């Protein structure tokens, strides 16, 4: 093709190359397509088809974990949080959380873990903390991607590792699946969500009319229209907010948030994270009562606002 085709040459070249291209696509038309119909029409579940070194969710076998915090130290983005306490003679882990939502699945923690382990069905030995082939972790709330390997009430004792021995561990993936299930069930928003939909859930119970009426009766005497902003702020902070000064609402302390509401600087009354639905409802009740609304009116408005915010 070195010499440039003339007027008719161009037509011949165009015809031939177009025909060549169409021959290729027609040949492809009769070949087997390469699409794998994940997730429902695969011969085996996808997790089993992945290679052994696949870097999916992390899992920690708490029986062989020596609480040496090597993984927490070496993780480039600090997604591992371990709390160790002294209990009697040994050391005990009360908390071992890994934020899988923030983790970048690089595997550096596995390399820095000193404790080797041999899982059944694996060709190569792995470590106490290791990556599994689990990867399906879609959830509605970011915080439910934090895997908590230590149960709330059952701290795990630190394991004493003898040099040179390779302790056995369960098959890779079991612990990860269990922990993921627990994470989905126990995270704050999942609780809120399931509550709203379960009969007699906390939110539903909070918004049940009589509970609201009882709460209004408690608050009403303390809240009158003559209350100054300072006093009103004190009532809000005292009665409604979670008093944890956690800063989730964007204000340094609960008292500051309450003052801002009372003065009118802060419009949003639902920002108390720890307090959740209960705080939102109570703040609305106090503000409505302070504005001189009748108990019933205040109750209705508070319920409406809470439902809207915490649906």
């Amino acid at each position: 093709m070195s010499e440039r085709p003339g007027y008719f040459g161009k037509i011949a070249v165009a015809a031939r190359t177009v025909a060549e291209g169409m021959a290729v696509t027609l040949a492809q038309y009769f070949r087997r397509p390469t699409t794998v119909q994940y997730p429902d029409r695969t011969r085996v579940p996808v997790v089993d088809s992945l290679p052994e070194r696949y870097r999916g969710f992390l899992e920690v076998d708490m029986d062989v974990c020596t609480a040496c915090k090597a993984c927490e130290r070496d993780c480039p983005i600090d997604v591992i949080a371990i709390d160790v306490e002294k209990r009697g003679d040994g050391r005990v882990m009360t908390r071992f959380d890994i934020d899988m939502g923030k983790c970048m699945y690089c595997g550096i923690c596995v390399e820095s873990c000193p404790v080797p382990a041999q899982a059944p069905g694996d060709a190569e030995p792995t470590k106490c903390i290791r990556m599994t082939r689990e990867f399906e972790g879609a959830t509605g709330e970011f915080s439910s991607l934090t895997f908590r390997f230590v149960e709330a009430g059952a701290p795990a004792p630190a394991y004493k590792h003898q040099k040179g021995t390779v302790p056995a561990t369960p098959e890779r993936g079991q612990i990860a699946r269990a922990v993921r299930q627990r994470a989905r069930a126990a995270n704050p928003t999942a609780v809120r969500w399931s509550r709203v939909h379960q009969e007699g859930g906390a939110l539903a119970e909070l918004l049940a009319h009589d509970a609201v009426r009882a709460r209004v009766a408690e608050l009403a005497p303390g809240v009158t229209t003559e209350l100054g902003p300072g006093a009103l702020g004190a009532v809000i902070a005292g009665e409604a907010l979670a008093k944890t000064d956690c800063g989730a609402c964007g204000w340094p302390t609960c008292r500051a948030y309450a003052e801002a509401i009372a003065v009118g600087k802060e419009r949003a009354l639902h920002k108390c994270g720890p307090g959740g639905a209960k705080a939102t409802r109570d703040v609305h009740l106090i503000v409505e009562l302070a504005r001189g609304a009748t108990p019933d009116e205040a109750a209705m408005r508070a319920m409406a606002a809470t439902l809207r915010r915490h649906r």
Partner: protein
Amino acid sequence: MRWAATALLALVGFAAALLLAGCALAGCALAGCAAPELAPIRDARPTQLQAGERMLVEASGPLFTVGAETRVTFDALGVTLPARAIAADRVVATAPSGAHVMGPSTVTVTQGEQRWTSDARAPFDVELCAPSLHRLANGWAARWPGPAWLWWMLALVAAAAIVAAPLPVVAGLIVVWERKISGYMGSRIGPNRVGPNGWLQWLADGLKLLMKEDIVPAEADARLFRAAPYLAFLGMFLTFIVLPFSRYAIVADLDVGLLFLLSVTSLVVVSILMGGWSSNSKWSLLGGMRSAAQIVSYELPASLALLTIATLTGSLSTERIVAAQGAWPWQWNLFRDPFTFVAFFIWFVSALAEGNRTPFDLPEAESELVAGYNTEYSGFRFSLFPLVEWVNIAVIGAVGTLLFLGGWRVPFVDAATLEGHAWLDAVGFAVFVAKDLAIVFVVIWIRWTLPRFRVDQMMNLCWTYFIPFAFVCFVGELVWVWLVPSTAAKLAGGAMFAIGGVGLSAWFVSRVRDNARRYQDLVLNDALGRGNT
């Protein structure tokens, strides 16, 4: 499950509507058939007569004796014209002097002492459409009260309904077929979840678009914006009037069929420009401008190629073009002579350009203009544009079949046997649809193989390559029809079929087999199973 329920409901509703329309029409048709016998004088044209002009009067049967002295009188105007019976059922009257205007009056022909008059309530100032529809309307007009034109209108609307009803379904099926072909050509599967093996995907898409919100941009030119899609749909729907799907399945056999076809498709240009301009977005404007330039400039080679066929057949009527071709491939216009062979490719590529199909899909080029003129459309209004585009592919297939591939002609069946056995018409229809779908497959196949032209290359291709070749074909055809005797023409047809048809396709099949042989399939991880497991 909720979603599947709504889809099922819609499907049942649609089927019921179709069934209802069918029964209603069948009822009318039955009622219509028992019409009284026709008036002796069936038709008299033209209706406005100037001095010296001649008028043709047709009878519904062989009534006149040729050569006898005949006179034609307009009863309402009281005017009598000398006439001559040129055939048993035809009389030609000439207007001697002064302008005679014929209003809605009856016509009587007198020969010797015999007199025949036309039926007052059947105005025949226009040749409406297919004879069957014509008779149907007459029947209604005869049996029920009300002005005749009302029943004509009803008959037309009924015909339009019959033609329009399947359009969305046809477009939908072609869309699904395209997505499946593009899938297999791209080593994918294509839709296979909605309905049997994915063939109800079009219904799901249609429903989805119906349910989607229909947004009109704030500063858009609202009236133009809303009107654009319907104009495009109208333009595309009108082309179905002249398409002869089979011997009887043609809405109206216009004498100017091809001309009508070309002029109607330009409505689509207007609608695309309206859509592009009124969306008030620079990208849409660019898309609209490109498509206007493209369709207008490719109108020229397309019409010249059609003219080549018209000169070969000697008539613009689609019916006669199909009738002029034989059923066997070497009798098709495509292989009739070298000029029509080249004209086919010119017409085909120009039709691709007019349908905004790759390699000419510049107006809605995904990588440059995002979606060109229909970027701002959404919901039902958006669904009309793709519907028009995919119906256009079917129309390209249909026009290609009727002009070049011998339309509904079935081998071993000529016009006479067709009169006798009406069911053969269905075979003709099937043959027509098969050839149509073959061309549609090629159109889709091209889209998933070739890249896109740049605007100036597209224009350059049209004006420096296509138009000169189209003129050469047109003039060549004139000379061919004039000089080449019919026997030599048949021989040329056979030769063309041998070289062009068999030779080219044999080479192409060898290239495809070569590609298939070289590719070695590889499977690294077959645990999951590929393709349609």
